[in-house]
């Protein structure tokens, strides 16, 4: 399975990209994905305060991902 990962704000800067394609296992959760991202991009290790949205809705750590989900990494927002 594969998900698309969208990066914003400081996380996009840290990783140097705005989108990634990321392979996941069946029944992988948001939490698994976060761990995998931290492993692949060590520059995220000191940065764990981001939220995650799946298909444009906020999702908790236990949310189970499906193939082709669009996962957005949402650093603390600062609109307004």
């Amino acid at each position, binding site marked *: 399975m594969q998900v698309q990962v*969208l990066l*914003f*704000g*400081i996380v996009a*800067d840290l990783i140097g990209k705005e989108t990634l394609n990321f392979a996941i296992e069946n029944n992988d959760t948001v939490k698994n994905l976060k761990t995998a991202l931290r492993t692949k991009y060590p520059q995220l290790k000191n940065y764990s*305060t981001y939220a995650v*949205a799946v298909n*444009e*809705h*906020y999702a908790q750590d236990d949310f189970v991902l499906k193939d082709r989900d669009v996962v*957005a990494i*949402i*650093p*603390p*927002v*600062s*609109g*307004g």
Partner: protein
Amino acid sequence: MKNISIKLTSDTLSLQECYAFVEDPACGGIDVFVGTVRNHTAKKTVNQLDFSAYGPMALKEMEKIARQALETYEVHKIAIHHAEGILKTGDIPVIIAVSAAHRAAAFEACKFAIDSLKETVPIWKKEYFEDGEVWVNAHP
């Protein structure tokens, strides 16, 4: 939804447009919050801000806030408009307008909407100073 106006745009936001949208013969009070770009933050002089958004989700979250305001408070109409891109001192990143029969509800709903927007809507600003730039709130 005809009681809700949501906008995310790189055009200049219009106070008059937001006011005109929420104005209603049954309403007795309109509260409008206008965010403006300050010329400084903490101790530094800000030259400009750059707002970026996760557009489709930002629109959904803004609409969610608007619906929640209409459900929670006795208000008639609400407009939530947000700007994208480079803004300078005095420019307007956000306008929220709410109309209600009675003013207390208009104030409360407007405050609720801007507070919620700053918590949940996926929009980020980068501040540009003389000597560098920083993502606001990045390390809360």
